[in-house]
């Protein structure tokens, strides 16, 4: 599948600000199953300075500095993204990959760079801490002769069935305990919930930020800016590598999921965060378009 991706963020400041700095994580990743071309980040007003580097997790970051006083700032990221099929469902059904004891053995004994990365993604992080409540979700789902992927798939389904997607119920700083208590949240909460649960059970797990192609209601045209950022998680299988799961939609991400960045949790891959000189409130608007082409 080919997509034309556009992610527009617009700041509106109460008072003019001088020297705004933003750190963007808006460049889709080059992956075996995802080819990115014509990627760009543009500013309006076009008076800023953009500098690019790679972070620890291999994501491309842009540091944006706009010096003159301004009351409005638009950051527009665009790219052409080709997403190839991954056939992960087949791996799941065929019982491929390791089981839990094999995974534990691998983590305890293997001295490769991949194993080290896996161990990194076994540690608690700020937004996906170890909690007794999240850890307790997994054991009841375990079954004999279950592969790692099958176990994770059970959790994926469990979250989908027992938690209600409620836009606006949480913010980026809502702790997991609250999500658990009310059984409500958005994609990023569900991803972090799964991550917290899996890591507490010794399973390497990372946060994936990206986009989802959405279909307009039947008979209606696609509305501009109707899409949104999305998030899911991936687990590490020593034989198969990283496998994505989307608990919000109870699917294994494939050609409708566009991958932006990897991290331990949302805090590592915030699409755009900034600091400004000056005081006063600001308003933020985001419009995302994922247009098949």
């Amino acid at each position, binding site marked *: 599948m080919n997509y034309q991706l556009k992610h527009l963020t617009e700041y509106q400041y109460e008072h003019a600000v*001088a*020297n705004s*700095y*933003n*750190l963007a994580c808006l460049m889709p990743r080059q992956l075996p199953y995802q080819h990115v071309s014509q990627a760009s980040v543009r500013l309006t007003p076009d008076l800023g*300075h953009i*500098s690019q*580097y790679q*972070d*620890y*997790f291999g994501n491309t970051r842009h*540091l944006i*500095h706009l*010096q*003159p*006083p301004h009351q409005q700032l638009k950051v527009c990221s665009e790219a052409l993204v080709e997403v190839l099929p991954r056939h992960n469902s087949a791996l799941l059904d065929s019982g491929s990959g390791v089981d839990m004891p094999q995974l534990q053995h691998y983590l305890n004994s293997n*001295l*490769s*760079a991949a*194993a*080290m990365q896996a*161990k*990194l993604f*076994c*540690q*608690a992080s700020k937004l996906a801490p170890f909690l007794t409540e999240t850890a307790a979700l997994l054991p009841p789902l375990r079954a004999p002769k279950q592969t790692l992927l099958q176990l994770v798939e059970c959790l994926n389904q469990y979250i989908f069935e027992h938690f209600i997607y409620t836009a606006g119920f949480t913010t980026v700083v809502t702790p997991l305990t609250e999500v658990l208590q009310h059984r409500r949240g958005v994609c990023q909460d569900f991803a972090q919930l799964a991550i917290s649960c899996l890591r507490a059970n010794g399973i390497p797990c990372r946060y994936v930020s990206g986009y989802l192609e959405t279909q307009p209601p039947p008979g209606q045209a696609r509305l501009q800016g109707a899409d949104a950022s999305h998030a899911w998680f991936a687990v590490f299988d020593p034989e198969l590598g990283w496998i994505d799961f989307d608990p919000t939609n109870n699917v294994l991400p494939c050609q409708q999921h566009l991958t932006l960045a990897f991290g331990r949790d949302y805090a*590592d891959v915030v699409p755009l*965060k*900034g*600091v400004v*000189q*000056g005081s006063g409130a600001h308003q933020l608007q985001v419009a995302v378009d994922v247009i098949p082409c």
Partner: protein
Amino acid sequence: MPAVNAPPSSTEQLLAWFAKFPLALRSRWYDDIQHQLRENGANFDRWQKPGRKLDLYPWLISTADWQQVQAGIAQRHQLLALILQDLYGPQQLVQSGIIPAELLFSNPQFLFESAGLVQQPEQWLPLLATDLGFDHHGQICAFADSCKAPAGLGFALEHRLALKQSIPELQQLRAKAHLSGFFRQLRFFLQQQGNGIAAILTHGARDEAYFEQAFLANYLDLALVHGADLMFSEQRIWLKTLSGLQPVSALMRFLDDRLTDPLELDSEGAGVAGLLHSIRQQQLFCANPPGTALLDSGILLPFLTAAADYFWQQPLLLNTVQAYWCKEAQPLQQVLKNPEQFLLHDLSAQQQYPADNTCALLQRPADFIARQKLSLHMQPCYDQQNPTWQLPAVLRTFSLYQSNQAPLLLPGGFARLGELSQIQLPVIAQDGSELSKDVWVLGVDQPTESLLQPSYNSMPLSREAGLLPSRVAEHLFWLGRYNERLNLLIRALRVALPLLHPTQTNQTEQQLYCFIDFCLLANGSPPRQANEPISVALAQLFSPDNPLSVIGLLKNLIYNAQSVREYFSEDTWLLLDKLQATVYQWPQTPDLQQPMTIIYLLDEMVLLQTAIYGLNNETMSRTQALRFMDIGQHLERALQTSLLLQRIYSQDLPSASVMEALLRMADTLMTYRRRYRSELNPMAILDLLLLDTTTPRSVGYQISRLHRQTRALPELTSADRQHLPVLTTELSQLLEQVSTQQLDANYPSCLTLHAQLGQLQYLLRQLSNELSLCYFTHAHRSSPWSMS
């Protein structure tokens, strides 16, 4: 086996030397030294008394011992630098299982953002402080490393100077190594990093650490800067000064790792956005780069021997303390069995404490590193009553790692003497129970004055007006504005309060409400509602909780003054102290039945403020600094006088009582009487307070002064200041348009006057913004920066 510090004869010789002098003299020396320390501290913060005491006896360390320390620290410094480079780079130590992945990746001091920041080991760790213990057998053992802010470097120097000054004759006793060579190297090292300024980045809080940083900055002749003094642009860091932006090439950092860059690290940090990126772009040299505090956390202590073996297949030259990760069962049992023998590093709380309480350790053992508590050799200490007093001692050493050179060790250090556990933990006891010593490395006869005599360009930041930091100018500007605003508010209250009756209201009183309205508006409160009782407005003005109250204003004033305290004389501080003290006498609600209590208080405040104006004119030698305060003061006076006149000349002509109050408030009643005898004419008053350029309280006077003062501001290298004269000229022209004769004829429909007074305020606010853009934020619209 090495000797126990100095051979006994050295120490005996030292004590014998002191014993030659009468007790009273020794006692005076001791007091002199403590006084010296307090005085040093007082230069930077007169409310801060150092908790440290300096012993009369120096700590003598033998040449043999020091050679062992020197070789050992050099190796340890190189090893730690190599470990940091690996952990923030290829992570071979983790991959090969020497440092557990879990321990590293879950440590809050491991900054993922710092990965790959610099490439060479010595760039990762230019400065290292290591704590050493000496045991009874003369064995030397390193037990802690500190990288984020090598606290004690300034103290080591301060102690040497204090002892030298107080007992000059003692210096001849033994030949010892000089400290100055190391500091000269350090300065040269920082200044050679680029063509920009080398500076010390301070945390800015007023504590003993700040004193040390200021002391070092003075000695090394480096600029002392706060995060707010700096800005990032075009891949590098700049110092905002009154003459524009100056590039910064090197920073010696005394700010917690996570606070250094609010963009990439903690957003509430006091550092500067872009700091990490400027290091990444090799435009800034940072000693030490953020991320090095990983060493301070203690997680590497258990693995140093293994790491030395991994990199070099060599043993450590200097013993390192026995340390364990408590996740492993065996060491955990050992610690639990003999907790009194261990000290703990709590990794998630980022604290260290004795292992007395094992509760947290049992709950989350993986969060702890335990290290053995060392038994320490005692050092003799001076005590008037007890001639054989001695205390356990530890020594903090400092080393500097330059590329292509072995690490250089300061021949001396910062000694801590006190309770055995306390001195092995990083926090210095604040109860005065700790003692320090000047540390002498014996037997090095030739002074280690560096052979290298670098030709550096010194840049004394605070002595040259051109390099006055913008932050300082901004605080002074606002100090001027707040001081004047407070002055006018108090004057308005002083004339209005005695005339207000608490319960009854009559027409005369209502006319005076315009002064209360002025007080509200002047400090940014919304205007009073038409039918709102005056008591509500007064309560607002007097409430200590309302940030827009008189007290809130005074607090703003004090805050700005405290932020630039090194620019004021002692006498000015005395006045500011007194002014601040009035906060505590402030009544919650003014008793309008007995207005005199509050009037006295207001009188006192006006007097104190006037004295501050006078003193500053007398004593502030930095003319540009003073100019910003002056501009702030007169801009505020013009602005508020315009506002006041706008309130008073709003609809009807002011009554006689209002006019008299106005003249009294503006302190111009005498001037008026001299000119016009006793007849109170509204237009004459308007002329006096608005147009007359010879009355120091008139708007016209302020504007001509602003015109003159803004022209004398420094030229900017990087911003356009053309708007300033345009604005002051516009202000003068506007005043010329106001003609009282014309007004007189058309009154009371003086809409034009009302609009003109409004326009004056608008232009003055613009002038304030323009000054801020040019000199404080350096973000002028027509000024792309150029590299100089």
